[in-house]
């Protein structure tokens, strides 16, 4: 256990992990600046925070984290574990008084912790920006929900890269597949799901069936897990024509139970699969 903590502390203190946290915080500072900076109107009397305003801010944060967290998690997972695993550097560590499981999980938790701290600090920065503009800051429950959602996304992508490094042999393959996952799950996901729903499932945009299917597809993609959390937390659909109108998330299958179950699954399954691969095929 002491060697597990030793390895986790060392990973957490690595330059890359610190840089990752700084990037998340800088990006969120830009968001806060965008909300409250010179570009935005400065009322004499601070406006009160409305439900719709909260939803807009959470959607802005969601859009930033949706791109930022997967790309940082993938990069971190690759540098901290995937690269070492595939180029053989990890072997000189494995022969020390530690186990593969300790190395895998300690590095995973260190990466996840850096994502968590980055999210926590960036959310606080955005909250401070919002508080300087509005009479009050963001609701604590919503901030915690967003942090938890993107911690799930970050942990899932870190775990996926760890898993990839046990499935393929070369650094190039790990990096190539990780970039492919990013393109499919983040950049082109909206287009892919839209085409699936319209062409394959023959669903019409704006219908309850379309919304339900979109939620289900968001559950199978960790990058979009945050969108479902925001939907649940704000009671406002993120999807197309529904934006800004109050809806019941449960009607779309977004309940606390489904969110917790899917969240735990995304945090645990990729990294446990990576561990199982290491045990079975090494």
């Amino acid at each position, binding site marked *: 256990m002491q*060697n597990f903590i*030793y390895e986790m502390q060392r990973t957490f203190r690595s330059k890359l992990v610190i840089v990752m946290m700084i990037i998340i915080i800088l990006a969120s500072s830009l968001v806060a600046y965008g909300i409250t900076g010179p570009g935005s109107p400065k009322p004499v009397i601070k406006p009160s925070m409305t439900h719709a305003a909260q939803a807009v801010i959470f959607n802005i944060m969601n859009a930033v984290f949706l791109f930022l967290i997967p790309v940082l998690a993938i990069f971190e997972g690759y540098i901290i574990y995937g690269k070492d695993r595939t*180029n*053989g550097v990890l*072997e*000189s560590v494995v*022969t*020390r008084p530690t186990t*593969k499981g300790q190395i895998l999980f300690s590095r995973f938790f260190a990466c996840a912790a850096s994502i968590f701290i980055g999210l926590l600090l960036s959310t606080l920065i955005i909250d401070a920006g919002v508080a300087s503009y509005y009479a009050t800051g963001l609701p604590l429950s919503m901030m915690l929900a967003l942090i938890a959602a993107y911690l799930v996304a970050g942990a899932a992508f870190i775990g996926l890269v760890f898993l990839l490094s046990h499935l393929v042999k070369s650094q190039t393959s790990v990096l190539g597949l990780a970039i492919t996952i990013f393109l499919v799950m983040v950049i082109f996901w909206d287009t892919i799901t839209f085409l699936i729903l319209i062409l394959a499932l023959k669903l019409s945009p704006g219908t309850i069936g379309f919304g339900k299917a979109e939620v289900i597809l968001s559950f199978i993609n960790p990058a979009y897990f945050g969108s479902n959390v925001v939907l649940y937390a704000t009671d406002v659909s993120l999807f197309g024509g529904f934006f800004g109108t109050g809806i019941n998330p449960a009607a779309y299958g977004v309940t606390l139970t489904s969110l917790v179950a899917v969240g735990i699954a995304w945090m645990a399954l990729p990294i446990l699969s990576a561990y199982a691969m290491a045990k079975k095929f090494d």
Partner: protein
Amino acid sequence: MIKYAQRSTFALPMIEIRNLIKRYSGKGPAAVDDLTLTINNGEIVGFAGLNGAGKTTTIRACTGIIYPTSGTILIDGADVVSQKTAASSSVGWVPELPNFEPNAKPMQLLKYYGGFYGMNSEESRTRGMTLLEATGLSGDTNKKLRNYSQGMKKRFSLAASMLNDPRNYFFDETLNGLDPEGIRYVRKLVTELKSRGRAILLSSHILNELETLADRIAIIHRGKLVEVLNREKIDAVMQNGGRLEDHFFSIIGLNV
């Protein structure tokens, strides 16, 4: 964490490989097939075989890099699979092709490795400096490992393997890639480790080296241990101008 100075609490310090089988896939023959071998304290066992015979696979299983398909490997009485941390606390490993974090400097890595043995930064630095001097690298401590030649990496690997002064060593084709000075150093080192009671498995396909250094020579072919020659047998083979190489080829059934 195991303090390096307090190493082993096990009563039988040695390497025991029992019925080791390693299969990389369900199809095809096993890379190592039912191999049983014991290396006692103060003994150098040469491990000879052609390329692909199973020498490196055996050593990788013994050091915990790969898992055995079946069989047991005990290091100082600790099972490499179920008691990995205890087993690895008394193992030194020098791979055929050392591979280290390319952007690290040697002392950084030695300090990192030292942490696994409960050594603090100062202890690791002092011990590391002694080992880097012994391996002829004290003048290259400011270079990153990516700028080291293969021979220098092997010297560094030797230093890293001795960091915690382990009781058991696995040298995998260690003489390959070393210059004559390095080869002489390894010969002296292995003899010195033997005199201090260390158990050493020395893999090589250079039979001349093994016949002078080893107390016993284990010959592996296509994953199977085909013969273990003790010192008397080695001497008998070499009597009247005989060559170990000829004996080796006759044992594995190759007419070269």
